[in-house]
């Protein structure tokens, strides 16, 4: 029985339990005793006590049984594997697992007269659409066969136990139904646990991401010294030398960091005034009708995939700026098609809706009383905005801008297409520079050994970027909390 089928059965039992529970509970609502919980809460309680333990059991059972089967198969692998055609025990084990899963495709009769040589089995499974490696050994066949049969047994036992558990849950739930039973509170508590679990998953994922990057970064720093990485001014990873020993190339972060910050700066230079003025217009001047139209339109910008902005930069903005500069200087243009300016400009366009939408919310949150107070003193609208509303909203706006900036720093697709790949240190915005994200993409794409510093540097870059944006976000939150105006 497949796991999916068992799950379906368990849910079926739960749903039946729900209806029986609800029906029984409503039958008890005689009016003599004041009931504690509505009938459907009893139904839900029955459903939850039958489904939750059973599902949990299925998960634990399948994980436990597969670990057990793998261990026992590994123990029965012959010792000479190390010298045989297969490179390692791990590889042999995964080949055995491949065969064992392939055996699922065979029917009972075929399993009865299973060919005992690997070559025959390979051709048999091949005819069923299961591809096996060519270097398998004959000794793998009986091990796989035993694995397969044990797995089937484990699944059957597990399915039986899970269904039994679900039924027991229904019976337990139903036995607890009486008018004063606190089904409502119980369901509420389980909902609370569910919500808690959801937020825990989000946090644990973050921790997991950090650790996955951390270990690879440590590997990288065992080859390249952190000093050279963080303070090196030359980025030259030397792909040609990968794996051949000798020179490792230079992994200087500075040119990438400079490019990242420079492009983000240009983007903010463009996005902040435009976004902020748009927000002020929408929050203070636009009639509700205009606002209702303009705001969603602006937010469409936020929905465009960044790769599309990348195209836009590459095929439209870049060539336009290049031709424009050529026309101005008369002859060779001084703006390259891929440049800091191109990437920054297009990234700035991408950031406008973030700035305007966040700032708009913050400006609108300034109480009406502030506006009235200022207008009532004979201030004009723009004086009111400049002297009362913006100062009051400033901490929030600064926070919003920092959040936007951390987005700009982490942005990838636009810079991959528009900023260029040359890791240079320059202050000329018309030349190409590159960013941390571009180099991560470069280092991870292509045919490279995964444990070479050329690849591992991507993780070091990733974790640097992570801490950079994390620091900005924390700083933004700190600013917002510290300077938040108490209007009451």
């Amino acid at each position, binding site marked *: 029985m497949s796991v999916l089928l068992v799950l379906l059965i368990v849910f079926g039992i739960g749903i039946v339990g729900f209806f029986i529970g609800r029906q029984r509970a409503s039958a008890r609502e005689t009016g003599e005793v004041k009931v504690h919980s509505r009938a459907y809460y009893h139904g839900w309680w029955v459903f939850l006590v039958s489904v939750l333990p059973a599902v949990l059991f299925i998960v634990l059972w399948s994980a436990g049984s597969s670990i057990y089967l793998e261990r026992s198969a590994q123990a029965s692998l012959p010792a000479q594997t190390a010298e045989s055609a297969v490179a390692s025990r791990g590889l042999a084990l995964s080949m055995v697992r491949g065969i064992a899963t392939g055996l699922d495709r065979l029917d009972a009769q075929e399993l009865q007269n299973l060919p005992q040589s690997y070559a025959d089995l390979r051709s048999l499974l091949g005819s069923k659409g299961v591809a096996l490696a060519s270097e398998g050994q004959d000794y793998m066949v009986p091990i796989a066969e035993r694995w397969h049969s044990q797995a089937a047994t484990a699944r059957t036992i597990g399915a039986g136990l899970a269904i039994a558990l679900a039924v027991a849950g229904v019976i337990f739930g139903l036995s607890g139904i009486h008018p004063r039973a606190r089904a409502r509170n119980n369901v509420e508590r389980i909902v609370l646990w569910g919500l808690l679990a959801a937020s825990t998953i989000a946090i644990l994922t973050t921790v997991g991401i950090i650790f996955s990057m951390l270990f690879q970064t440590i590997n990288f720093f065992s080859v390249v010294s952190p000093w050279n990485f963080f303070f090196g001014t030359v980025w030259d990873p030397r792909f040609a030398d990968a794996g051949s020993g000798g020179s490792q190339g230079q992994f200087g972060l500075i040119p990438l960091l400079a490019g990242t910050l420079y492009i983000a700066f240009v983007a903010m230079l463009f996005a902040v005034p435009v976004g902020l003025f748009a927000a002020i217009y929408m929050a203070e001047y636009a009639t509700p009708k205009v606002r209702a139209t303009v705001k969603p339109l602006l937010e469409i910008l936020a929905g465009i995939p960044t790769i599309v902005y990348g195209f836009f930069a590459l095929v439209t903005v870049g060539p336009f700026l290049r031709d424009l500069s050529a026309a101005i200087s008369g002859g060779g243009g001084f703006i390259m098609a891929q440049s800091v300016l191109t990437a920054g400009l297009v990234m700035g366009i991408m950031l406008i809706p973030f700035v305007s939408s966040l700032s708009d919310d913050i400006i609108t949150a300034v109480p009406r009383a502030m506006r009235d*107070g200022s207008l009532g*003193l*004979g*201030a004009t609208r723009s004086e009111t905005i400049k002297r*009362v509303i913006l*100062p*009051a909203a400033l901490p929030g706006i600064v926070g919003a801008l920092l959040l936007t900036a951390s987005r700009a720093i982490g942005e990838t697709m636009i810079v991959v297409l528009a900023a260029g790949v040359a890791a240079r240190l320059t202050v000329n915005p018309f030349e190409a520079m590159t960013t941390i994200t571009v180099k991560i993409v470069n280092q991870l794409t292509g045919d490279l050994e995964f444990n070479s510093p050329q690849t591992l540097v991507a993780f070091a870059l990733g974790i640097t970027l992570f801490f950079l944006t994390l620091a900005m976000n924390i700083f933004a939150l700190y600013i917002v909390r510290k300077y938040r105006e108490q*209007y009451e």
Partner: protein
Amino acid sequence: MNLMTERSLEKAVGDKMNAVASTNKMKGDKVSVFYGAKQALFDVDLDIPEKMVTALIGPSGCGKSTFLRSLNRMNDTIEGCRVTGQITLDGEDIYDPKIDVVELRARVGMVFQKPNPFPKSIYENVAYGPRIHGLAKSRHELDEIVESSLRRASLFEEVKDRLHDAGTGLSGGQQQRLCIARAIAVSPEVILMDEPCSALDPIATAKVEELIDELRQNYTIVIVTHSMQQAARVSQKTAMFHLGNLVEVGETEMMFTTPKEKRTQDYITGRFG
């Protein structure tokens, strides 16, 4: 019906003498206000006498705040609001397109129901208006305006050591007096007060009322209030609104002792509203 103390009766008699001599600072002529399609005020004729306190009373939603806000065109900031009829300030129509609304609001200041100091220092709160209108030519002059405004609002002694602390850190009553000082600082001719004491405790209320009585010497004041006692204590002229109509208007003393309209009598004796 003995709502008034002996003292305020005496005062009211004195005020009555003043009232005769006083001229009208503002005049409302057939003022109607619409919010979208809904009419909130119906043909109100009401004059505001100079250097006196005029109280607008009536149950919630009767249009008294609407009338008050149309006196300095604060209703302009509300979407879909329309005013018909005529309101004049010193004989000039304030809804005339030639009138600059910003200038008007500098002449007709406003104090709101809830104290709304800006999130700035006490000094900056008071200096806000003078700065905008360029009333002070030097820092020294500005200091003087701030001090005298705070003094007139009877707040200076309480805050003189912390002028550069946040205005939002004051107590509710102090905040409201700060808002009054802020309004005085631009030297308006008329001060509109929209339930200025409704968010204050009785002690702070007493201080603000005392202040209003003092301000009467220099300013024309219009106050919206829900408190009959307050209207009786601070005002010389009272206008009673109900359902968007002006029910009755007259000298405060007369209104509270011998109201002509039954609705006025019912309201001030607490029978409805």
